[in-house]
């Protein structure tokens, strides 16, 4: 009986460096972070003079974060469909990683927005359609992550979270439209929908920067997920063997 046979070969090979990213991933991460720093600097330097107030600077993290969060949720949808079609563990790990990164970015959008809203609008929060639907979207994926945390069986966890991911993604446009109708019937507070073309280049650059950083995080998270799955398998094996011990 080979007692180490429960350890997948790629885990055994990595000799304790599991959680450290491999050289390719590390290089990508470094480039992503450097590009992000440069894009931020570029954005801030090219701000139109009249807007040099500190407040506007948040724009270059706020809007890209929102875009990439939405993109992450779209990845969750795709990975969920992929999982149901193929039952590939890789699909589930991608979905989980994208959901976590997306929820993180979504949370950042909310926090940044609130920090911005207090000085500009005088309140932390207002029931504006975009704000409200961002919050609901955030909560949908908090539910998704809670489900993942609460289901122990890996196969069932993958299957159920794929279902919740699909329904959640289906809900996004419905939520967005209904919140609009709910709100726009009455007076609308200044919404962040008027954008000066002067911001466009900086925004686009920063959108890519956040995209790269997010992609790095997803890849890193996926690696951790693989290790977690291996640990889960080993622990279960140990439980099975523990009986006669």
């Amino acid at each position, binding site marked *: 009986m*080979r007692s180490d*046979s429960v350890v997948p070969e790629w885990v055994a090979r990595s000799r304790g460096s599991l959680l450290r990213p491999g050289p390719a991933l590390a290089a990508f991460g470094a480039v992503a972070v450097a590009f992000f720093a440069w894009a931020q600097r570029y954005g801030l330097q090219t701000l139109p003079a009249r807007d040099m107030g500190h407040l506007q600077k948040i724009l270059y993290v706020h809007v890209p974060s929102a875009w990439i969060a939405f993109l992450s949720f779209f990845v969750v949808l795709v990975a969920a469909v992929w999982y149901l079609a193929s039952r590939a563990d890789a699909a589930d790990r991608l979905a989980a990683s994208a959901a976590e990164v997306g929820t993180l970015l979504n949370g950042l959008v909310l926090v940044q927005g609130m920090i911005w809203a207090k000085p500009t609008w005088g309140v932390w929060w207002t029931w504006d359609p975009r704000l409200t639907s961002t919050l609901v979207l955030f909560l949908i994926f908090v539910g998704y992550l809670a489900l993942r945390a609460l289901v122990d069986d890996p*196969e069932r966890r993958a299957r159920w979270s794929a279902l919740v991911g699909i329904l959640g993604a289906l809900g996004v446009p419905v939520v967005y439209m209904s919140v609009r109708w709910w709100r726009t019937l009455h007076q609308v507070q200044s919404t962040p929908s008027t954008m000066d073309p002067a911001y466009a280049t900086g925004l686009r650059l920063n959108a890519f920067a956040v995209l790269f950083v997010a992609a790095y995080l997803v890849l890193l998270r996926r690696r951790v997920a693989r290790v977690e799955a291996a640990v889960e*398998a080993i622990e279960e*094996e140990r439980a*099975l063997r523990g009986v006669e011990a």
Partner: protein
Amino acid sequence: MDLEVAAGESVALAGANGSGKTTLLRVAATLLRPTRGMGAVCGHDLVADADGARAHVGLLAHRSGLYEDLSPYQNLAFASRMLGLGADRGTIEAVLQRVALAAAAHERVRALSSGMRRRLALGRLLLAPRRLLLLDEPFASFDAGGLDLLESVAGEVTAAGGSVLVATHDLKRARRIVVRTVWLERGRTVQPPADRRSVADAPRLVGR
């Protein structure tokens, strides 16, 4: 592991606590999906054709799967409808008679003793013919009459060309039912399994 149960054969599963008997029965009943390996019941693959396999399998589990607030009669009537047999009064009363629950037919299941519940769960298996009977520690809770009943039910299934698989620690009693015994130990594979469900490694359960 490798297990083949022939038509008309009855087999006991033995093994220490936690050796995977219950898990194997649940895989054979399509309640768990085998992580690796494959199995089939009466030619129906357990994964690809789970629905086909289900039609032939009857499981008597640790927990009976009854509705506590309904009566034994109502529980059987529901089971009968779900099997697509309608709820014929005569049939149900005959089953209740056979498992000696006629007197308690309209009590709440909640008020029944543990053995009476097991009888009712057994009665549910009598509603339709089964090709493969899976019994998980069936000797617990039954009194002498219950054991006779169990024996005759298992006998009928094998006589009709079906098979019986009994997970138990009580091999002496099991011998009244089974013809051979299979031992499980961590799934009884030659190579140690990489997964707790590997007990399901290729359980070829062929009911016929």
